[in-house]
């Protein structure tokens, strides 16, 4: 097309989630059509992110500070730790603005069939944080899948001897959702987890 540099740019863009070759070509064209306005700021932002952003040594969150801004925030409740699978899940919970405790990113889920075992997860730092004291409750906010539930049960077995309260987010009817449109699995779980009103 326009030389190896453009081909390489497209090849790198194609690797990103949600992008196919056609979208990658459109993005490359947009960037290159006005390099000063689009390409240079993006290039700068990418190199800055690559230079500064690190994984938090306490919770596994991504931040330019270590400990991250959440772990270092004195206004957050240190007695609460919410365990999540990925940084994406942490961001989703942060967006709600409802949780004022700390987080811990596991970095995956146990999956015997796919060869992911306990040694592949970020569990030892979590145990160390709880053993250090001050933590009263751990919320296991993992996916409502077979792997997510298996991981939560395994983690609960590891954490129970440490004397912390363990909890999981509720499962049920989504806000704005109708029963008719719900899948059978969610509906069954919602009925199982019904509460007295």
């Amino acid at each position, binding site marked *: 097309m326009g030389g190896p540099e453009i081909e390489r740019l497209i090849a790198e863009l194609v690797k990103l989630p949600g992008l196919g070759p056609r979208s990658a070509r459109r993005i490359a064209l947009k960037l290159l059509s006005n390099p000063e306005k689009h390409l240079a700021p993006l290039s700068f932002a990418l190199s800055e992110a690559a230079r500064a952003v690190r994984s938090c040594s306490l919770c596994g969150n991504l931040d330019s500070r270590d400990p991250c801004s959440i772990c270092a925030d004195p206004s957050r409740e240190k007695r609460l730790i919410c365990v999540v699978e990925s940084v994406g899940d942490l961001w989703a919970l942060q967006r709600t603005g409802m949780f004022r405790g700390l987080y811990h990113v596991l970095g995956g889920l146990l999956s015997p069939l*796919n060869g992911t075992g306990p040694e592949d997860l970020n569990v030892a730092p979590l145990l160390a944080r709880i053993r250090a004291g001050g933590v009263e409750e751990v919320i296991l906010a993992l996916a409502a899948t077979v792997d997510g539930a298996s991981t939560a049960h395994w983690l609960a077995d590891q954490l129970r001897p440490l004397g912390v309260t363990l909890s999981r987010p509720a499962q049920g009817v989504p806000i704005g959702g109708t029963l008719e449109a719900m899948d059978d699995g969610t509906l069954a779980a919602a009925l199982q987890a019904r509460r007295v009103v």
Partner: protein
Amino acid sequence: MSGCGAAKVRQCIEQSGRFSKVEWEAPAIVLDVSPFGESDALAVVLTEAHGRHRGLVRGGSGRRGGAVWQQGNILAVRWLARLADQLGAFTAELAHPTAALALEDPLRLAVLVAACAVAAGALPEREPHPRAFHALMRLIARLPDTEAALTELVRWEVALLAELGYGLDLSRCAVTGAAEGLAFVSPKSGRAVTAKGAEGWEHRLLRLPPFLLNPEAPAQAADWRDGLKLTGHFLARDAFGSHHQPLPAARISLYDRIAALAAANSPTPPHSANPSREP
């Protein structure tokens, strides 16, 4: 149309007849799902007529597909491919949300995952094993009662071994020939042995839980442990060993859980260690 064009059309029609699409529809149990790409999945299901079958699921690990394609779920599956030997693609409707009903109970979930992992690893691909399919359906139906499901799991594994050609002979004693008082199984021959015939050799034999001989016999944690150890030994040696594969981690973890439960319930030490670590 020119002569050349007509010939091409004829060739196309002939080829389309030769390469006609292959499809089937059947009730299926999801044995394994692994993510493929961003939102697709590679699924392994067990059906009555088509056995263990693989296929691609478009959107299988996405928001909607993820709820349907969970291990243990019973689906009405449609498989479609251009050629019979291709991977093909699945579409499905959820018939029974087994996984959703088992998520909250650790033991129930462990039983379900172990059964699916054993079926996914032990059964040959695209070879019908209707008895194994129906026995797994029975196990899933009994899953709400975890204790009954554990008994059913051991029975299912015994049936699976028989289905694969590695059946145990629990009809009479290999030493005395007696049909009563069977209490052990030889780890070499898979034949039952009475307590009398096993005298002095008990530590070398596998315990035979009473519920495998008498469907009415009650079962406790120690019986499930013995049953899982018995079937685990032969699954590891024959069904998985013949493929040079270890027993699935989910099955080993279930045994460990039941062994811990049996140890907590009884002060006597367990018969021996994990089946996967046994000779």
